[in-house]
């Protein structure tokens, strides 16, 4: 039995069905990241768990008992909001102390615990400041402190890093896992940044159109996406997609690709004769300046360095676009682009999808 059990939750706003029987189980001490594009019902899901909203149908169980009939103040959850939702008329200290005040702890105990939490979050020097005097990073940490301080069994984090600058967001991405593990409760973390989801989640639950399309460990979702939409959401640059139709050839199968005939590895043999959408991740395309075995000739149109990897913008012989990446130290080989190159594609790791529904076509058994 799961610790936190969201059981077939449905909710409609006006005529729009935001959640359609969404189910998710979270174990004790586990961090599950709810990932999806904006407006996908992620925030609503957290509101249902926190109790500030009620589902049309379905149940929320904590430790096997339904908590739907409890008000938000009785559920003992902690929550941090995307817009921080700090109390503007109270200093940071009182903001963080609020859950302890509600539990009527002694002043000395409150004092001690607020300072302890603030030290952990590195905001002990701004406790006397009002929210408007805090930087965005400090606001975000104050909100996190308020959510954590009472040691809730369930912590709800609604895109808490969205409104802080890139550098701070990165810093928190590195620090948060340790903080969340030391806190020990179960965490539901909402984000629309796939890197954040992969970095922070023990598991990632992909919420699309009101349903959880895939719930799995981050690496599994990246390597084995259940749907083409998930494949497109995970990865930067986005996965390259081309319609192909594998045909038998000799003792294997082959496809028409970029104006050439390409033989696919035996592991894709079962796809023979099916129309499908082939997904090639940019990092599985290796670009060389000299001809290589199995390399397809292409034109390199532009080189756009990212931070750790560099994106190569390729044009194939049948005038299609293809994005590949290379590591930073290889980038120097390519100059400003506009030259002929040869791309070797790792077809072993290609992903295939059903063109109409977008469902992943399973790998060979």
């Amino acid at each position: 039995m799961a610790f936190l059990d969201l059981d077939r939750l449905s909710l409609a706003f006006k005529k729009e069905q935001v959640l359609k029987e969404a189910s998710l189980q979270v174990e004790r001490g586990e961090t599950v990241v709810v990932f999806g594009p904006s407006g996908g019902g992620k925030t609503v899901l957290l509101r249902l768990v926190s109790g500030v909203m009620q589902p049309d149908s379905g149940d929320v169980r904590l430790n096997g008992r339904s908590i739907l009939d409890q008000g938000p103040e009785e559920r003992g959850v902690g929550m941090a909001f995307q817009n921080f939702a700090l109390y503007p008329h109270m200093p940071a200290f009182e903001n963080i102390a609020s859950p302890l005040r509600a539990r009527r702890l002694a002043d000395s105990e409150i004092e001690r615990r607020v300072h302890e939490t603030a030290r952990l979050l590195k905001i002990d020097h701004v406790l006397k400041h009002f929210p408007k005097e805090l930087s965005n990073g400090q606001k975000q940490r104050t909100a996190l402190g308020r959510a954590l301080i009472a040691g809730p069994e369930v912590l709800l984090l609604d895109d808490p890093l969205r409104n802080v600058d890139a550098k701070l967001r990165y810093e928190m991405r590195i620090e948060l896992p340790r903080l969340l593990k030391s806190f020990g409760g179960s965490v539901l973390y909402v984000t629309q940044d796939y890197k954040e989801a992969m970095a922070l989640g023990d598991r990632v639950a992909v919420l699309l159109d009101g349903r959880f399309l895939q719930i799995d460990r981050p690496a599994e979702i990246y390597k084995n996406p259940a749907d083409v939409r998930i494949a497109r959401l995970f990865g930067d640059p986005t996965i390259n997609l081309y319609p192909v139709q594998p045909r038998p050839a000799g003792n294997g199968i082959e496809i028409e690709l970029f104006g050439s005939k390409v033989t696919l590895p035996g592991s894709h043999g079962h796809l023979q004769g099916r129309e499908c959408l082939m997904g090639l991740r940019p990092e599985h395309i290796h670009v060389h300046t000299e001809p290589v075995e199995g390399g397809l000739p292409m034109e390199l149109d532009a080189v756009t360095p990212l931070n750790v990897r560099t994106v190569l913008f390729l044009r194939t012989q049948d005038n299609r676009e293809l994005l590949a990446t290379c590591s930073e130290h290889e980038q120097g080989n390519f100059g400003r682009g506009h030259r002929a190159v040869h791309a070797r594609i790792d077809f072993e790791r290609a992903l295939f999808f059903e063109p109409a529904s977008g469902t992943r076509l399973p790998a060979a058994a």
Partner: protein
Amino acid sequence: MDRSNPVTKILRGLALLAIGLFFLFPLFWVALMSFQTNEQILRIPPSIVFEPTLSNYWALISGRLVSTAGVLEIKFMGNLWNSVFLSTTSVALALILGVPAAYAFARFRFRLSEDIAFTLLSFRFAPPLLVLLPLSLYFQDIGLTDTYVGLIWVYQLIALPLILWIVRGYFEDISPDIEHAYRIDGHSWWKTFTKIALPLARPGIAAAALLSFIFCWNNFIFALILASAGKQPVTVGALAFVTASGIQYGQIAAAVILSILPTLLLALYAQRYLVEGLSLGAVKG
């Protein structure tokens, strides 16, 4: 881009002065009149130079109006007290009823909520004369004519819609997340209302209270019809200065100045909260 040079600065100053004079001149003239006798006022041509007298104020405070036709007893100080009492209690009652109602309208969508809110606002567009006749008949029947309770009740027509609509807007501006956060912290909804919603909407409540106080204070027609001399506010009481032997301009002017004073003081006091509201600003997080 600010390209101000000395010439535009001077022109701007002059324009401000002209506008100020235009709006404040009547008030300034009334203030001067209040320190003059009727004869000085009616001089032709009028003059700005005169010997100031406090006789007008003295007459109002003592309640004895001495004119060429004899001595007239007036109850101006009584009227002033009535105004203070009626306006204060009306606004207080409207706040007690209106602020929670405004919160409900702002936070909850219930059946007919928009219709009810609109009906309450519609009290403001009906001309008072339209409701006065039936109202005065009913009041006579149930014995509310010429009572403070009756007047305060009728004043709710003025104060309640104003408070409801202004304060509702302020509540709507507070992010619901802030209240949700406080609930999730473990506080009851009542504490959330008193510790979060009320303090954050305070500037709005202050503004609405001030405005409805002024409207109540300036009301004339309800008090004229529904109250007799003993319960009448200053607006109606000033009619007493229109006597058979002429109009007592000096006393009227002094009465105007005295009746402006309470609202002016209140506005100056409430300004603090209005400004505080602006500087608190980041309510939306």
